């Protein structure tokens, strides 16, 4: 059964330095989680009740895709699509089979994105949420395929798309096929867009590489969670290139907003209401929820 694993805290992270951002799964830390921002010890159950945000300083911790969808959309409204799609080791890349098995076990999901439809206050929308605990939310063929199918379904049914990105970028283990997913998803987003349909993307921590350079940056309205790392090249790659430390806050959601790449920064606590209002403002005149 999937459920057994479903709410396990993610164990793998984008970079080692980010590891302490996440609730540690080890036994001594089980009850309490140390918040790296305000240093307070937070009861893990309180953290979970608070959408994985620190109750003292609102630091946003990693959040599973399934919990995110369950918390932000109408209860029981999520109808998952293409849940059964799983990756193969298409190019016989060393060790990929084992990594896929580990990722399934760790995340409780079949792949690094969940797709489907759901409602907010009765407004129906297509939705995808990426799962950072599955190989860092990296995009391989199945992630690309599921996102593409979702935009095609939304186009067919005249639905908006709301997406949550969490990704280390393209998945190396599928070689060029991962890169091609950037092209495939971009073409699907463009078709959906050209039909006059709304796409809202919420950039979460972290959104990087090939996902940033494709569907994460192609939305009509770009929201971001506070302090999320959003970049094309990761901080370490840049520091290696320029041989100096990056300024504090470089590539944070706040930085991107200052540079003009994000519309709004929205806390998890306000996200549902924000999305509800945006969906409502895009309703065609004379059409109401449930019609």
């Amino acid at each position: 059964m999937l459920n057994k694993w479903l709410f396990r805290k993610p164990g793998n992270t984008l970079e080692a330095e980010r590891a302490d951002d996440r609730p540690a799964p080890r036994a001594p830390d089980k009850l309490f989680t140390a918040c790296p921002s305000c240093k307070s010890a937070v009861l893990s159950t309180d953290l979970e009740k608070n959408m994985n945000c620190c109750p003292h300083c609102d630091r946003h911790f990693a959040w599973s895709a399934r919990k995110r969808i369950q918390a932000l959309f109408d209860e029981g409204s999520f109808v998952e699509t293409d849940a059964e799609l799983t990756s193969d080791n298409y190019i016989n890349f060393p060790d990929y089979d084992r990594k896929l098995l580990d990722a399934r076990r760790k995340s409780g999901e079949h792949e690094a994105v969940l797709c489907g439809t759901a409602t907010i206050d009765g407004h129906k929308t297509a939705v995808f949420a990426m799962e950072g605990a599955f190989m860092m939310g990296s995009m391989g063929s199945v992630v690309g395929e599921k996102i593409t199918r979702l935009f095609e379904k939304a186009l067919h049914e005249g639905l908006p798309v709301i997406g949550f990105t969490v990704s280390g970028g393209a998945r190396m283990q599928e070689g060029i096929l991962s890169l091609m997913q950037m092209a495939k998803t971009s073409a699907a987003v463009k078709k959906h867009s050209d039909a006059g349909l709304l796409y809202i993307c919420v950039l979460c921590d972290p959104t990087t590489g090939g996902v940033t350079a494709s569907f994460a940056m192609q939305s009509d309205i770009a929201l971001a969670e506070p302090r999320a790392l959003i970049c094309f090249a990761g901080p370490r790659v840049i520091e290696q290139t320029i041989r100096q430390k990056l300024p504090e806050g470089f590539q944070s959601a706040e930085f991107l907003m200052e540079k003009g790449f994000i519309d709004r920064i929205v806390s998890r606590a306000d996200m549902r209401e924000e999305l509800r209002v945006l969906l409502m403002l895009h309703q065609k005149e004379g059409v109401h929820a449930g019609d």
Partner: protein
Amino acid sequence: MQAIDRVLAARSKDRATAAQYIPRLFDDFTELHGDRRYADDQAILAGIARLNGTPVTVVAIEKGEDTKSKVARNFGSAHPEGYRKAIRQFLLAEKFGRPVITLIDTAGAFCGLGAEERGQGQAIAESLMTLSALQTPVLAVLTGEGGSGGALALALADRVWMLENAVYSVISPEGCASILWKDASRTQEAAESLKLTASDLLDMRVIERVIAESNTLDATCETLKAAMVDEISALRALPLNELMSDRYARFRCMGGVLP
């Protein structure tokens, strides 16, 4: 030849750059500069030319030939303004009904402060969206290195070709070995595993054609030009709706998952 040898050949300092290909493939190349937003990124060499008489838009990545021009061209690693310069040329091509030919040779989009600040990811994402719906034929030719998103940004095309010793990959073999295995000595194995040679990609149907390289650049360009002339005229003969749906289908079926 092993995969790593192709990688080294593609990067060789003796390998021809776009500035050498362009006069051998096209006539009357007229360079057009700038993105109208921020700057003129010289890593992108773009303009209008004639291919066997037909006006075409040419967008190329230029690495530079000598030290001075290499620096000016940023060694062929474009900034966001380079991709925005390309997008401007794509849209002009569509407006005036010119086919687009891209020549790609880059280690990757530039990774630096300015590039991030000005939205490298957004620029590439926009180029991909633009090309996916561009109402005119697009032919992409990888002449050397096809470095990840920075190469793909100019390669969402109706036909994608590679020269025999070009490579095309999601990540460099060095990057792959150091990130995945924390072991730079496994670069050769990474090159092999990534399946990045022209013949690998032809097998995977990621590209349509491999252009054989002759002993001289002139001879290689003669082969390439003849193929381009035929292909562009075939693509122009297609009804526009067919061209567009074929382009969508070309990428739609990639990835080993049956719809």
